[in-house]
C-alpha cells in the first residue's frame, strides 16, 4: 500500500481545467519529485492534494483513506502537510509564534517543546531569530521557517512547493540539505520543483508534469538519462 496515491485526478478553476487524469503514487520513506515548467499545473496539483482546490473527478488516497472530499484542516489532521511557495508563514507574527502555530492540532500542541527542540536543532538560524517578525526574514529564512512550521505538525508526508524559488544558488543548496535532513526523521517528502537538476538529485523517483498531464515517470537515473528530459529541462 502506498502512503499517497492519486488515480485519474482532474481539476481546475471554474471553467478552465488545469489537470487531466493524473495518476501517481508516493511510497513511505524517501523523496518523490514532481517536475515541470512554469504553468504546468504543479502548484494546482499540490493544492488539490491539500484540499484547497476541489477535485472534479478521480480519487486521492492517503494512508489507505480517501481524502479528496475532505476540507484542508481535516487533511492536515491526517498527517499530510503542505508548505506552499514562500513558506505559508504569518508575516506579522514572530518566528516562534509561527512555529507554535505549526503545532496547532491539539495532540501536537501538547508536545510543542520537543518539536521546537527538533526544529531548532535542524535550523539554528530560526532559534537566533525566534523573536523576530516572520515578515522581516530573508527569502531563505522564510523557506526554512515554512519547513520548520510544517515539521511542527509532525506530518507523515510533507508536500514542498518550489523550495528553490527566488533563492540564490548557494541558499538553494542549503535548503535542499535541510530537506535531506528532515527525511531522516521518518517524514516522506513529495518535492515539487522547476529546478529539475536539483530535484532529480534529491528524489529517488519523479514524475514529469506538462500542460496538466503526467507525461513521464521513472527513477531519477532513468529520467536524467531520458532524451526528452535532457532536451527540455536540462538543456543538454
Amino acid at each position, binding site marked *: 500500500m502506498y502512503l499517497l496515491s492519486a488515480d485519474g485526478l482532474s481539476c481546475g478553476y471554474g471553467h478552465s481545467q488545469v489537470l487531466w487524469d493524473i495518476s501517481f503514487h508516493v511510497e513511505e520513506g524517501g523523496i518523490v519529485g514532481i517536475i515541470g515548467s512554469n504553468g504546468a499545473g504543479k502548484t494546482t496539483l499540490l493544492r488539490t492534494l491539500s484540499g484547497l482546490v476541489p477535485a472534479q473527478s478521480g480519487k486521492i488516497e492517503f494512508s489507505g483513506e480517501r481524502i479528496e472530499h475532505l476540507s484542508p484542516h481535516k487533511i492536515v489532521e491526517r498527517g499530510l502537510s503542505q508548505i*506552499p511557495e514562500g513558506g505559508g508563514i504569518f508575516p506579522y507574527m514572530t518566528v516562534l509564534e509561527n512555529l507554535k502555530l505549526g503545532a496547532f492540532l491539539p495532540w501536537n500542541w501538547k508536545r510543542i517543546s520537543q518539536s521546537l527542540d527538533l526544529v531548532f536543532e535542524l535550523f539554528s538560524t530560526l532559534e537566533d531569530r525566534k523573536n523576530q517578525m516572520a515578515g522581516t526574514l530573508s527569502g531563505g529564512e522564510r523557506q526554512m521557517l515554512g519547513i520548520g512550521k510544517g515539521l511542527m505538525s509532525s506530518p507523515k508526508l510533507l508536500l514542498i512547493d518550489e523550495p528553490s524559488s527566488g533563492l540564490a544558488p548557494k541558499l538553494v543548496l542549503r535548503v535542499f540539505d535541510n530537506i535531506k535532513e528532515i527525511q531522516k526523521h521518518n517524514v516522506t517528502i513529495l518535492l515539487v520543483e522547476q529546478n529539475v537538476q536539483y530535484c532529480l538529485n534529491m528524489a529517488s523517483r519523479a514524475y514529469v508534469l506538462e500542460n496538466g498531464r503526467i507525461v513521464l515517470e521513472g527513477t531519477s537515473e532513468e529520467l536524467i538519462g531520458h532524451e526528452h528530459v535532457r532536451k527540455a529541462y536540462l538543456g543538454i
Partner: protein
Amino acid sequence: MFTASILIQQIVYGLVIGSSYVLMAAGFSLIWGIMGVLNLAHGEFYMLGAYIAYYVSSLLGFNPIMSAIVAMAAMFFFGIAFERALLSPLYGRKGWEMSTVLITVGASILIQNLALVIFGEKYKGLPMYFEGELEIWKIVLSYDRLVVFLVGIFLIALLWYLLKYTRVGMAMRAVSQNQEGAYLTGINVHKIFYLAFGLSAAFAAAGGALLAPIYFVYPTVGAGPLLMAFAIVIFGGFGSVKGAIVAGFLLGVFESLVVLMVSSAWKDVFIFVLVIIVLTVRPRGLFGIQ
C-alpha cells in the same frame, strides 16, 4: 476659563468612555481583519448587550459587573448564531464580502425594529448602583464610572491576552494574516470565523452593558457607537486590534476635551474632521497594514 483639575477630570471621563469605545471597536476591527466582513449590525450587539444588562439588573438586581458578564455570555452565543445563520451560507460565493454588507445592514434594521416592538421606545435608565464618588486632588469620579472603567480595562487586557497567547487567539491572528497558510496549518478557518464573531459580539455587548448604568438605553442606542467604531478603526488602522485600543482611548479623550472646550453638539464634527485628516495624511491609520 477652566482649571487644570477640570481638564484632568475631563480627560479621566474621556478614558472611561474610551474604554467602552475600545470594547466596541476592537471586535469590529477583529471581524474585518479575520473575515473581511464589515459588520454593520455591530451597533445592535451593543444595544442588545445594554438591554440585557438593563433587564438583568432591574429585574434580578444583579450588580453592573454581573449583568455585563451575563450580557457578554448571551451575546457570545447570539453572535455565533448570527454568523452561522446569516453569513456562513455566503462564504465562497462570488462577491460574498459585499453581500455581507447588505445582510448586516438588513439585520441591523430588523433588530432595531424588533427592539422597538419588544422593549418599547422609552429611554430606560438604571439607578446608580455603587453610590458615592471618589475624590483625589479635586478630581471627582463616581464609583459607577470607576467600576465601568476598571472592568473595561480588565476586559481589554483579557482580549489582548486571548489574542496574543492562547492557541485559538493565535489562530485568529493567523487567519487574518494569511488565510491559505492557516488552512494548511490545520486551522478550521470557518470555526475561527464563528468564534471570532461570537467574541466580537460579546465585547460589543460589554461596551453597551457597562455604559447602561451611566447612560440611557433605547432601540437605536447602538448607532452612535457603531459610527464611533468606524472612526476608531479608520484612525487606528483597519483590522488592527492594537490600533483600536490606542485610537479608542485617544478619541474618547479627544471627544471629552471637545465637549469641554467647544460644546457637546460639535463633538462628532471634530471627530470626523480628525478622521478625514487621518485618511488624507495616513490612510492606513496608526497601526494599519501596508
